[in-house]
């Protein structure tokens, strides 16, 4: 108890004036990282020890309790003392609010709800401990909590006293600075705003200030981070450049060295050669001179001998003398006859020797130039890089090479006539690419390239085959068929050689072309496409052909309206006696006295029944069209499968469904024929225009008198395949088809 009281005294001492700050000092001061970062772990460790000790002994044991209490109190005392002389109140005052503010609920709320406040306090402490942010405030709060718990275990009831000390902490914090004076850039207490020097100043809530300050810092940190990254990148770059410079200069040095060595070798060789030549020449001349000298000496000897002999002869007797004189005269005569060569055969000075240094010069030159480049590498064709008349050819060189220009050669690839050489073309360019123009569309060309510099041309590159984009397809506008939901569009390739695929592009005609969204159907392998559309719209359709080289330009546009169904008559099915108008929508059987010779049977062409078929789009929806008729005309209108027997009348089989009108003896007869049978139906007003509704969904075919909106008849028909409109004229006259019209309201009831 003594210790406890002493400790309390100590505590009182630590906060002599302001009781509220007491435990702040006690628990928090140690943890301020800016002052004692290294002390934090120590303190924690001690607390943990206290806790574990507490747990091991158990709360029920009085002795152990008191022991522990002593230990803990010692701890507390220690910190209290340390605090005492190290930190003053002002310091706490300044620092503490910053730690607490952002985490704690506003002042007013705390006042009203102390229990919650308590919870928050604990929560923040625990959370901070878990996160271990390293902020002094958070750590201290956690440790506070630890200590408090220790107290609770050790003191039992007595711990409540400590609660009393602990609880004021919140109040204390609440009274700490809670707003931020913008003018002074300092946190202040709210009441200060009222009467202090901050009276006129702009203040904002501290949390706001904190947030903005944090934001500012984060922004700056972000900037710094970015700068660091930039600098690191730059440093890396510099390093690379460094290495490259080293490499390049090293290469250059080697280059120089080898060249100089070469030149020196050449010079040395030349010297050797010269010296040797000179030596030989000297030897030759000396030898010649020596020979001359020797022969000269011999001559001299001979002369001397002759002289001596003559002199001896002069001393001889006459007889002998005469005898000898004759012989001597002969000898002399002979000797004198032999030419004495006194010309010097070799000149002492040598002829003007010009030294040939041209090869050396060339070598010297070659130090400044470079060797002839190696063969460039030609790239394969990049997709979508070609147009119909041009390709863009690219190649690359080895980095060591210096190239002044390239020569690009090409010729069309043609398997058909290998014997006949295709003309080759060559262009010279500086760049490593070339757009070659004036080519034939959808054609393969073989390209190869050589690099040139002063040293000469490189070997030729490999040969690469490039292909020009195709020519645009040609839409068969007369064969376009459409309905409310789709269009079937056909086109001619426009290219002799096959292309890879086609693309159909569609734009809604209403929207201006610039902003209009273009939809594309890609990868169409054949020359026709069924494209789904929205009903009641107008579309502009283009087709492109594609190959490896790229897409062709757009075809000429075709316009499609998805209003009603649109079809034309199929001339291939047309009976020879019928004529079809230019627009493909009027059928005429002329009055001529026809040669009643029946045409030969056919699978596609009507031969007996004077009929023709339309090409309806193969879409299982609703199709509606109208036929303008003369009320005295004999006609049949309806639908039939494509393979309907062409030798039979329409409606005379189970592959066709038709309405037939016959006018005889001023009576109209209407038959609705399928498989040769008809219901008995009488119609009082002859239709001038017949509406025909084909409804795949409900398997129905209905006929209407358009002008009266009168329903005439509806077939229920099993349409397992697609049917086509069919028309026949039993008498001369004409039928006019109206299609591409929207379905009248009244037909929707059938």
């Amino acid at each position, binding site marked *: 108890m003594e210790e406890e009281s002493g400790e309390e005294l100590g505590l009182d001492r630590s906060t002599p004036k302001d009781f509220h700050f007491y435990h702040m000092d006690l628990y928090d001061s140690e943890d301020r990282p800016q002052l004692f970062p290294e002390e934090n772990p120590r303190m924690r460790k001690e607390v943990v020890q206290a806790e574990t000790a507490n747990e091991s002994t158990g709360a029920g044991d009085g002795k152990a309790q008191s022991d522990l209490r002593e230990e803990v109190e010692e701890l507390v005392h220690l910190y209290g003392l340390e605090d005492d002389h190290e930190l003053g109140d002002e310091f706490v005052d300044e620092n503490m609010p910053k730690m607490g503010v952002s985490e704690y609920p506003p002042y007013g709320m705390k006042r009203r709800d102390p229990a919650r406040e308590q919870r928050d306090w604990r929560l923040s402490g625990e959370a901070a401990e878990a996160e271990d942010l390293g902020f002094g405030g958070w750590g201290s709060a956690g440790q506070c909590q630890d200590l408090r718990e220790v107290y609770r275990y050790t003191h039992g009831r007595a711990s409540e006293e400590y609660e009393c000390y602990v609880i004021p902490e919140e109040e204390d914090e609440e009274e700490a600075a809670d707003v931020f004076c913008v003018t002074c850039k300092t946190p202040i207490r709210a009441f200060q705003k009222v009467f202090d020097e901050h009276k006129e100043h702009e203040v904002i809530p501290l949390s706001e200030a904190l947030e903005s300050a944090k934001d500012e810092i984060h922004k700056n940190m972000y900037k710094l981070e970015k700068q660091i990254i930039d600098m690191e990148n730059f440093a890396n770059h510099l390093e690379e450049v460094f290495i490259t410079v080293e490499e390049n200069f090293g290469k250059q040095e080697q280059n120089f060295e080898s060249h100089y060595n070469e030149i020196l070798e050449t010079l040395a060789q030349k010297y050797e050669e010269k010296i040797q030549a000179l030596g030989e020449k000297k030897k030759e001349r000396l030898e010649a001179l020596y020979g001359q000298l020797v022969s000269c000496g011999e001559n001299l000897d001979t002369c001397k001998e002759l002289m001596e002999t003559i002199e001896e002869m002069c001393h001889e007797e006459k007889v002998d003398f005469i005898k000898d004189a004759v012989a001597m005269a002969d000898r002399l005569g002979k000797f004198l006859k032999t030419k004495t060569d006194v010309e010097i055969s070799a000149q002492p000075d040598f002829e003007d020797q010009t030294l040939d240094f041209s090869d050396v010069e060339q070598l010297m030159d070659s130090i400044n130039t470079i060797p002839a480049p190696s063969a460039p590498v030609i790239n394969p064709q990049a997709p979508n890089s070609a147009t119909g008349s041009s390709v863009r050819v690219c190649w690359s060189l080895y980095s060591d090479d210096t190239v002044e220009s390239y020569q690009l050669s090409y010729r069309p690839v043609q398997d058909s006539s290998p014997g006949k050489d295709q003309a080759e073309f060559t262009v010279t360019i500086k760049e490593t690419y070339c757009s070659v123009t004036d080519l034939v569309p959808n054609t393969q060309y073989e390209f190869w390239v050589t690099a040139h510099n002063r040293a000469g041309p490189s070997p030729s590159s490999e040969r690469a085959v490039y292909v020009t984009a195709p020519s645009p397809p040609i839409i068969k506008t007369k064969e376009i068929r459409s309905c409310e939901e789709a269009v079937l569009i056909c086109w001619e390739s426009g290219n002799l050689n096959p292309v890879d695929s086609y693309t159909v592009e569609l734009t809604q005609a209403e929207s201006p072309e610039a902003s209009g969204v273009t939809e594309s159907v890609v990868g169409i392998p054949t020359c026709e496409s069924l494209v789904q559309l929205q009903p009641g719209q107008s579309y502009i359709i283009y087709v492109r052909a594609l190959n490896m080289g790229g897409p062709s330009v757009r075809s000429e546009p075709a316009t499609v309206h998805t209003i009603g169904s649109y079809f034309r008559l199929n001339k291939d099915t047309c009976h020879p006696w019928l004529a079809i108008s230019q627009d493909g929508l009027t059928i005429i059987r002329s009055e001529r006295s026809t040669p009643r010779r029946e045409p030969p049977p056919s699978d596609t062409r009507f031969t007996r029944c004077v009929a023709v078929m339309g090409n309806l789009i193969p879409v299982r929806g609703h199709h509606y069209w109208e036929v303008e008729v003369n009320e005295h005309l004999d006609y049949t209108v309806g639908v039939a499968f494509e393979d309907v027997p062409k030798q039979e009348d329409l409606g005379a089989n189970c592959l066709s469904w038709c309405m037939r009108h016959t006018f005889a003896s001023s009576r109209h007869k209407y038959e609705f024929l399928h498989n040769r049978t008809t219901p008995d139906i*009488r119609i009082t*007003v002859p239709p001038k225009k017949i509406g025909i509704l084909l409804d795949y969904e409900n398997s129905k075919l209905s006929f209407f008198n358009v002008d009266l909106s009168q329903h005439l008849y509806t077939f229920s028909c099993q349409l397992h395949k697609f049917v086509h409109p069919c028309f026949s004229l039993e008498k001369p006259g004409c039928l006019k088809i109206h299609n591409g019209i929207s379905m009248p309201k009244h037909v929707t009831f059938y």
Partner: protein
Amino acid sequence: MITVSQDQQLDRRRMALKQISSNKCFGGLQKVFEHVSVELNCKMKFAVYLPPKAETGKCPALYWLSGLICTEQNFVSKSGYHQAASEHGFFVIAPDASPRGCNVKGEDESWDFGAGAGFYVDATEDPWKTNYRMYSYVTEELPQLINANFPVDPQRTSIFGHGALICALKNPGKYKSVSAFAPICNPVFCSWGKKAFSGYLGKDQSKWKAYNATHLVKSYPDSQLDILIDQGKDDRFLLDEQLLPDNFIAACTERKIPVAFRLQEGCDHSYYFISTFITDHIRHHAKYLNA
């Protein structure tokens, strides 16, 4: 007619309705009411089908006029019209074929004259003229009663059945469309018609023209009327020349009144025949009533 304000009239009529039965059917209600008819001076029953769409708005009204010997019950129980009427959202009103229990001498003597055979004429001869005013009843009194008591759209009214042709041809523009099953097309030339007309209208045959469809067509103004007629080919009354549709068709052809006349193979004069084609007829009316 008693002069009362319209409101009082409506009130009286509304009050006068007495519900006899009500049955749920295809989302709607098939009801039968009884009321005291001013025109007929007797209690009358009529059947009315309330379509499901009537709960949310006004619906067209389609009047069915039954043939000889029928009450309001025959059509509602035998024709099977309810599904189509429910889908298209039609009130279908089926009155009795004649006044009942009026104690007119001889009214129950034969099946083709008197009770059950009102022929939708306004009788001018004694003793029939007091009660047998079916034409006025079905074209005036009953529609007013219906309009006052049910959410119907009076502008969209059509008629079909036995007397429908006469009602439509006598009131151009009143009915949006008309159709009939095996109608008596030219009563002045058949024994039924001769008997009924001479009884109700007297011996003066010129008065008969007013209820002769074939004659009425000839004076019908050139307004659009799309007539659908189904006729059983094996109908014994057709073979007995009671119906005479060819005369009507010829008249319509001459006057260019549009008729689609469908002679149905193997069919007779029964409700089996009617129920086979009732959906076609209701669709025919839908084309005009729901246009």
